């Protein structure tokens, strides 16, 4: 789930050399000599989509009362659509331009709009850091015997929870400020190990649910795991929720085009197919495994299991370690990235001050463990914000030359802000929201694709309008 290649490591102690690495072709196309073959991509993206969030999402499906058919087929279809989004949208554009989305956007929309989008991404990362700190704290609570904290309850039930969050977030903030190099290196060690914990736990608890051979699985899946009955206070999800969730949970990365960061190094445009490995390990196997673990927890009387309870039921202490590590190694780079992103809007304020403020904000959010149960809604809102950005870049690269419109407007007009891009972003989000309300939908993810289409159409129309006016103004100046 987490965009691990953006877990850029910066160490204050060796800032020059690290920045050299970070700025590798950030403002120029990747040269052909530096492109990579398919095998490299397969290895690179296979472990990309497995993190602490997987312990939250699998159980969410169970608690939302999804049926077994809906989960299996929904995840199958949704993940294939996600792979196709990488293969048909993100990777081809990345190979064609060989630029990162952020530099491409700067050329299209101008620095101001990019900074704004960056800052919103930064705030998203802050919230994400808080979510992951909560997940890790849940693991610590269980391993140390502190009073247990329910994640379906919004308010903290013990003062010790708040104290734990303060200590954990202080540590995360300190590391994010002083350098996360070693955390990033540690995360690389955990990546090959994590999928096995999910897979092993999922298999090992099956006998407890009554599965003793493969032929038992389907019946138990329908009667004990994904029963189709939502938990109290949870909305009912069907196959469409699962398809759209699994397709669009990574909207920002595929149709939002942020993965151009990595695919600009691809030798061929079809390398997007490499995302298949990551998707089916992280968003198929791991979600199914954590769903099975959630059912095992419910069976032993834990009605609203925390990710740590889920993991420890499946793998004992190894599961607890897994939750703490997965949560912490995701929270740290998220807060670090947030600091960097928000600094784009306040370039004169030191990064450490911004990261500290965001860390305090994440700490306050972490006091409320129930926010974790809103992870799906949170991801959906960000999908709605990120989708139009990808649409603008996609239209600018592929359709504008055919329509005779000027590409890279800001770059070709002395850094002027491209209000057609900004306008289409706002129109897309506003119209998507109105449509969501009007159609009385219950899931924001349903609006990410319409949002992408609205942004694409409105960007072309507004650009025609804006560029037409500019041409008229130029003709008038020449006549005078």
């Amino acid at each position, binding site marked *: 789930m987490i965009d691990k290649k953006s877990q850029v490591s910066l160490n204050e102690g060796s800032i020059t050399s690290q920045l050299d690495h970070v700025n590798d072709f950030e403002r120029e196309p990747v040269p052909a000599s530096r492109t990579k073959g398919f095998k490299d991509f397969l290895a*690179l993206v296979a472990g990309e989509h497995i993190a602490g969030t997987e312990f939250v999402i699998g159980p969410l499906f169970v608690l939302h009362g999804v049926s077994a058919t809906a989960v299996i087929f929904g995840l199958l279809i949704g993940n294939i659509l996600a792979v196709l989004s990488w293969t048909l949208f993100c990777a081809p554009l990345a190979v064609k331009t060989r630029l990162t989305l952020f530099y491409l956007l700067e050329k299209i929309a101008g620095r101001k709009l990019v900074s704004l989008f960056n800052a919103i991404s930064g705030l998203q990362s802050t919230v994400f850091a808080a979510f992951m700190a909560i997940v890790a704290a849940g693991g610590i609570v269980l391993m140390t015997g502190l009073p247990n904290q329910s994640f379906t309850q919004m308010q903290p039930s013990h003062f010790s929870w708040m104290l734990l969050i303060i200590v954990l977030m202080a540590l995360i903030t300190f590391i994010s400020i002083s350098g996360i190099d070693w955390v990033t290196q540690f995360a690389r060690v955990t990546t090959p190990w994590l999928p096995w914990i999910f897979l092993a736990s999922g298999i090992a608890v099956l006998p407890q649910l009554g599965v003793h051979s493969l032929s038992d699985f389907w019946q138990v899946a329908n009667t004990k795991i994904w029963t189709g009955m939502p938990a109290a206070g949870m909305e009912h999800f069907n196959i469409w929720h699962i398809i759209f969730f699994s397709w669009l949970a990574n909207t920002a990365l595929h149709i939002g085009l942020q993965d151009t960061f990595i695919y600009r190094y691809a030798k061929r445009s079809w390398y997007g197919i490499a995302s298949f490995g990551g998707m089916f390990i992280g968003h198929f196997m791991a979600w199914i495994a954590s769903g099975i673990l959630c059912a095992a927890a419910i069976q032993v009387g834990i009605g609203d299991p925390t990710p740590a309870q889920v993991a420890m039921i499946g793998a004992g202490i190894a599961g607890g370690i897994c939750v703490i590590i997965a949560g912490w190694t995701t929270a740290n780079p998220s807060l670090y990235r947030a600091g960097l992103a928000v600094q784009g809007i306040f370039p004169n304020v030191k990064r450490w001050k911004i990261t500290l403020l965001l860390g305090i904000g994440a700490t306050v959010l972490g006091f409320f463990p129930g926010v974790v149960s809103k992870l799906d809604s949170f991801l959906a809102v960000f999908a709605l914000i990120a989708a139009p950005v990808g649409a603008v870049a996609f239209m600018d690269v592929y359709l504008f030359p055919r329509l005779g419109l000027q590409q890279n407007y800001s770059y070709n007009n002395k850094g002027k802000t491209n209000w057609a891009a900004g306008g289409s972003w706002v129109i897309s989000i506003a119209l998507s929201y109105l449509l969501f309300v009007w159609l009385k939908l219950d899931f924001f993810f349903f609006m990410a694709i319409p949002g992408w289409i609205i942004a694409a159409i409105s960007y072309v129309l507004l650009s025609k309008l804006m560029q037409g006016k500019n041409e008229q103004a130029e003709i008038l100046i020449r006549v005078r």
Partner: protein
Amino acid sequence: MTVVIKIISITGLALNIIPALLTFNDIISFDHYKILMLAGTLMWFLTAPFWINRNQQKGV
């Protein structure tokens, strides 16, 4: 030396999946499975840092 360390790492990973299959087939108990999972986890984390980041630095 690196080869030996890598073998220990991979054995650790194997200990993170094979016991689950043995538990599923009722060959070992769930408690034994959990102990072996912890052993595998420790073997992985005590050895993998010595070679994995060296390999990663050669990547994209």
